[in-house]
């Protein structure tokens, strides 16, 4: 063994950037490919998203029809329709409704294998998750939006930067969602079973991220508190508000800026929790 064969691209400050990018890219691609193999489940899932799209769309349209100025929470009808259908498309992209892979690996002990990899554990989960999101963007995002566009009038953005800003906002939403899911799953290091926290996360995600209703329908102070004090609106409400141009340009960009802050804070928290958890694993002698 001359050591050449065992060389693996690693992410470390000493290695050139190209190696880092290659590893990261390969992990993203692996995540993408893995999800591409569940074609029937993808179709079934889209069907369900579409049924819920009709449900939520009609309810919000009825609210709009009954509101005095026809603009509940400042959205007109086309904005509400867009909010619902694009939201149904994004739902699985940002994986709002649960993910327990890490906690399952912790419970079974497989997580120790992750520590042997030459890539930081947080990165080795984040990269495939971005690949998963990319795959879902191509498969699960399109059908609901297409159906919404065929049956209802969707809102057409008027500002040239809205669509690119929306794209950035979606990527940030995926990272924020990943950070939260990683932290929720990591509770299994201490609790051994993260089923409870994962359920709690699913429930809070649906309500506080803006899936069940636009958060702007809540009293103003409460909505602001959610935005600043929790990462939830950054996973769904922010991209949707950016796309529907609910706010003036400055606030539109400011909300994405807030997403950047939350994404950074959550990734840092993930790294810190991972460090603590590793020490705990060693202490257990596992």
């Amino acid at each position, binding site marked *: 063994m001359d050591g050449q064969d065992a060389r693996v691209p690693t992410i470390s400050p000493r290695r050139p950037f190209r190696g880092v990018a290659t590893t990261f890219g390969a992990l993203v691609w692996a995540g993408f490919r893995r999800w591409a193999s569940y074609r029937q489940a993808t179709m079934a*899932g889209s069907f369900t998203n579409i049924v819920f799209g009709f449900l939520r769309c009609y309810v919000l349209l*009825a609210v709009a029809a009954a509101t005095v100025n026809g603009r*509940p929470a400042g959205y007109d009808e086309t904005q509400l329709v867009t909010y619902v259908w694009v939201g149904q498309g994004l739902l699985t992209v940002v994986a709002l409704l649960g993910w327990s892979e890490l906690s399952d690996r912790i419970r079974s002990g497989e997580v120790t294998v992750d520590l042997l990899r030459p890539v930081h554990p947080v990165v080795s989960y984040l990269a495939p998750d971005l690949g998963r999101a990319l795959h879902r963007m191509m498969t699960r995002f399109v059908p609901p939006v297409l159906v919404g566009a065929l049956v209802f009038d969707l809102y057409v953005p008027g500002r040239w930067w809205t669509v690119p800003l929306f794209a950035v906002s979606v990527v940030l939403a995926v990272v924020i969602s990943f950070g939260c899911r990683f932290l929720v799953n990591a509770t299994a290091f201490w609790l051994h079973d993260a089923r409870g926290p994962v359920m709690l996360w699913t429930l809070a995600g649906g309500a506080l991220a803006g899936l069940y209703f636009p958060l702007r*329908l809540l009293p103003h102070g409460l909505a602001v508190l959610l935005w600043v004090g929790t990462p939830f609106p950054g996973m769904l409400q922010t991209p949707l508000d950016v796309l529907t141009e609910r706010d003036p340009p400055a606030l539109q960009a400011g909300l994405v800026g807030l997403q950047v802050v939350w994404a950074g804070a959550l990734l840092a928290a993930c790294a810190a929790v991972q460090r603590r958890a590793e020490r705990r694993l060693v202490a257990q002698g596992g």
Partner: protein
Amino acid sequence: MGEQRQGRLFAYAALLAAQARAAASYRASFVVELTTNLGATAMDVLTVVVLFRPAPRVGGFTLAQALLMVSLASCAFVVADICVGNIDRLQTYVRAGTLDAVLLRPLGVLAQLMLMDLPLRKALRLVLALVVLGVALHANPIVWTPARLALLVTAPLFGAVFFGSIFVLSASLAFWWVDSGELGSAFTYGGRDFASYPVTVFEGWFRALFAYGLGFAFVAYQPALALLGLTDPLGLPPWAGYVSPLVALIVAGVAALAWRAGIRQYRSTGS
């Protein structure tokens, strides 16, 4: 004959007790799940309240009237979910081969699947749904008659039979289509959400299909109209509120047929 039946009951009780022990051994997790389940029902109700904030009437109904519908739907759904909700794991059991073990035992397949995961953690949801029902009954001026009292009891019960049948129907899909994924949720959870709102909120073929084609209007909307003594803006006669048992039994019959056909044609995935 009697002895055999007793033995079978004993076997079911043993299955149930094993689940109770399992739940008790992860106590912290159990408490979190208990409160989360409570939160799930609270969210359904809260969503309705929030949606009524900008408008005094949605779909022609007041918040108090809508609360009656959402609480009736909630009671029915929670009872069904506690009894047969776990059936939606059937596709996992088919894929993992667990179903083979279940089929080998000399017990009812459906009963075993129901007992394989003790749904005690969902119990608080029923309490909350009943509390909201009480609040809704208090908030609406209802002229009580014997027929309406009977309706108040039968509507959630047959609503539960209805939802239970939808659970079994959508789970049966897994016998033919293992990768059916979340498809069933469109009709179980989607149906619950549909039944939670006044049917007037929905439009076109979507309303026609869910409300009358599949029968979700008879879970909460029609009974609520009958309780409140309101005429249906969509034109069904007043007695439509009392036909929910009939609708539930028809759907239950269809579900039973689908389940039997599914079990009969089930081939193990093998390993």
